[in-house]
């Protein structure tokens, strides 16, 4: 696989419109924050070189998607080949939190991942910087949700305040790398299987 040579990790960020997906991406990739992003249409794309465990170097391709439901039909074009999916909600927006599960399901339906049960997700609760009174999603509820979705790692972040963003993306990178290696192994297994099937099949076709 050519991706092995370069170790490209494809990460896709999903979540409701306005939860801060674009801001998180920019904070992570270029350590910047702006109040002036336009709404994402389709998907935006940034890359960052990452080093893990001291020596493993990879390029992370971060796809920041549009949050509006109408754009979901596009998903397949962007989800394909993802190594990790980041689900983002806004701690001040209950609806965005409720939608986390449907974003996960949406992803699994369209991404065509090899093993849905083990595919890595990471949940980010963003806008941690806002005043307490505006927060409507409790940490407890978030933890329960993360647990119910299969012990998905959960981070409370603030792209604006640069809280926890790097930590979260380190976890994302680790998960993505793991997934990418698992996929590569699976690919080799498939390859061997294919040869076996062909060998097995030959006698039967000759027997006609």
């Amino acid at each position, binding site marked *: 696989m050519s991706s092995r040579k370069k170790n490209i990790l494809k990460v896709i960020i999903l979540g409701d*419109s*306005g939860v801060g997906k674009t801001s998180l991406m920019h904070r992570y990739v270029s350590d910047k924050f702006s*109040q*002036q*992003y*336009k*709404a994402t*249409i*389709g*998907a*935006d*794309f*940034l*890359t960052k070189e990452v080093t893990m465990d001291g020596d493993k170097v990879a*390029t992370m*391709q971060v796809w920041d998607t*549009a949050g*509006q439901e*109408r*754009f979901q*039909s*596009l998903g397949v*074009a*962007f989800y394909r080949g993802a190594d990790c999916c980041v689900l983002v909600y806004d701690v001040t927006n209950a609806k965005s939190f409720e939608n986390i599960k449907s974003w996960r399901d949406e992803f699994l339906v369209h991404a065509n991942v090899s093993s849905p049960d083990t595919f890595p997700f990471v949940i980010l609760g963003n806008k941690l910087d806002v005043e307490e009174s505006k927060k409507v999603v409790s940490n407890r509820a978030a933890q329960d949700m993360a647990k119910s979705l299969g012990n998905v790692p959960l981070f409370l972040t603030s792209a604006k305040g640069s809280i926890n963003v790097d930590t979260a993306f380190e976890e994302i990178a680790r998960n993505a790398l793991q997934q990418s290696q698992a996929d590569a192994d699976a690919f080799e297994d498939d390859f061997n299987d294919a040869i076996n099937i062909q060998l097995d099949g030959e006698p039967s076709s000759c027997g006609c």
Partner: protein
Amino acid sequence: MGVRPTTTSTSPTPREMYQKSNSSSPSLVGSIMRSLKSSHSIRRLSAGEDAENGNHDSLQKSNYHRARSLNSNGSAQSHGRGVSHIHLSPLRKSSSGNGSFHKDKHSSHSQKRDKYFADLDEDWSAVIEDYNMPIPMISNGGVELRPPVTVGSRRSETGESRSPSAGYPNLPQLNKSRSSDLKSQYEQENEREVQALNSLMHRVAKFDAILNPTHGNQVNVSELRRLSWNGVPMVHRPSVWRLLIGYASANIKRQSSLLQRKRQDYRDGVELVFSKDHTRDLPTWHQIEIDIPRTNPFIPLYQFPLVQESLQRILYLWAIRHPASGYVQGINDLVTPFYQTFLTEYLPPAQKEDVDKICPDTYLSREQLLDVEADSFWCLTKLLEQITDNYIHGQPGILKQVKNLGQLVKRIDSDLYDHFSQENVEFIQFAFRWMNCLLMREFSMSMVIRMWDTYLSETSLDSTSSAAAEAPSSSLPPDSSLQNSPGGAFRETVTSAKFQGKHNAAATSRQTSLSEFHVFVCAAFLIKFSEQLIGMDFQETITFLQNPPTKTWTESEIELLLSEAYIWQSLYKDATSHWR
């Protein structure tokens, strides 16, 4: 332009030239230029130079030449294929309309100049000395001033700091300049400015004439389209846009009463959806609410709460009235060129160019603001009627356009297409936004507005062209009163089939539309960067295309792009026959 080309044979010339040049647009331009037996003593610039340094002089000249070439070659071919003249005419105008003048200029420069200036001498000197004088300004093709500016401030603020080629390069008659090489730069600049002004006034006068017909009550909308394709003077833009898109009536006697009625309709609509009886659609409201602050965040105008509330009303009302589509992100972008343009109507000429900085409540009454909103609302409605499929569930219009773009690029620039395939670059990954926002995210607002002069000229059906009918909904002709159109005004329920049935075969053998033309513009846009893109891998390609270096484009570049799109549309008609 009522006269259609009479040649019916298919001229192979543009295609051959194209193939020789193999997809590099500057070479296309170059080869067309070379093929011309121009009587003008125009300074020759190599095609390579055009491409490398983006020399505006040469680009504009190429544009001009290409238009001529198209007139002599392309139009014949196009006509043979049943192409409408709506496309041809704007370009034809630039060649035939001004051609004799240019020729004169070049044949005996100084003598003609004096003669030419004599006509308008007093006028232009008056203009440049009185910055506040209400002389219309222009930001359009024929004249090529960058971005819409007033005479006064252009001179005082930007004129000096800009290089001549960037400032006023676009008058073909200026490009000869061998003789003026000897003149001082100051003189040259002066001369350019003078000529730009003259040309501007000439153009303004043309629009004046067409908008105020001396006989009859009808504005000749097909003539207006032809003229507007090359850009509309800022002072005329509000009225022209209203007509082009079919919002205002072409019958000048009915214009104001109809406008009044529509504006009242809007007020009633707003009153209704903001009354207690209306149950607010919260998801839609929320989506619009979070998108408004993200609309043109770098333009001061859109930061004023007054303006944001205005846009919110327009978008929400539109969404409620169009439940099949509802509000889709990107529509917030599409309303702003209308809004900004209609605001200019209420600004004195010297301030029109500052419309994006001044808070409307400093010059508008509440009622006037609602009129601006109403006009924006109805024009947005008309525009979206043409591209409904882009925003309904599944966005089939966009998916189709992206697919068509891919096929087109495969034919026009197979090297680039193959390269993309090799790198696993998918068109949807970068072109989705191009379709969803009509390339608005790629250009500055003033360039988008210039582009829309052409786009809105493309919106409608007229006697020899019909709007593209990817779906019946996208084939809606605006309420126009074109000379030959059946019945003048169309109902929204007219299907393309029905519409075609009313036309003679020659007139309907081809359909064209805003969305089709837009695909060609996107193709021209992409192929412009072909050479660079072929050297890029997947990541570089996507990164580049998401932030193309086009935010600083000037009008000459936009107009070249539009011309290229037009030429390709003519050359590749057969490629689009199945798009319908």
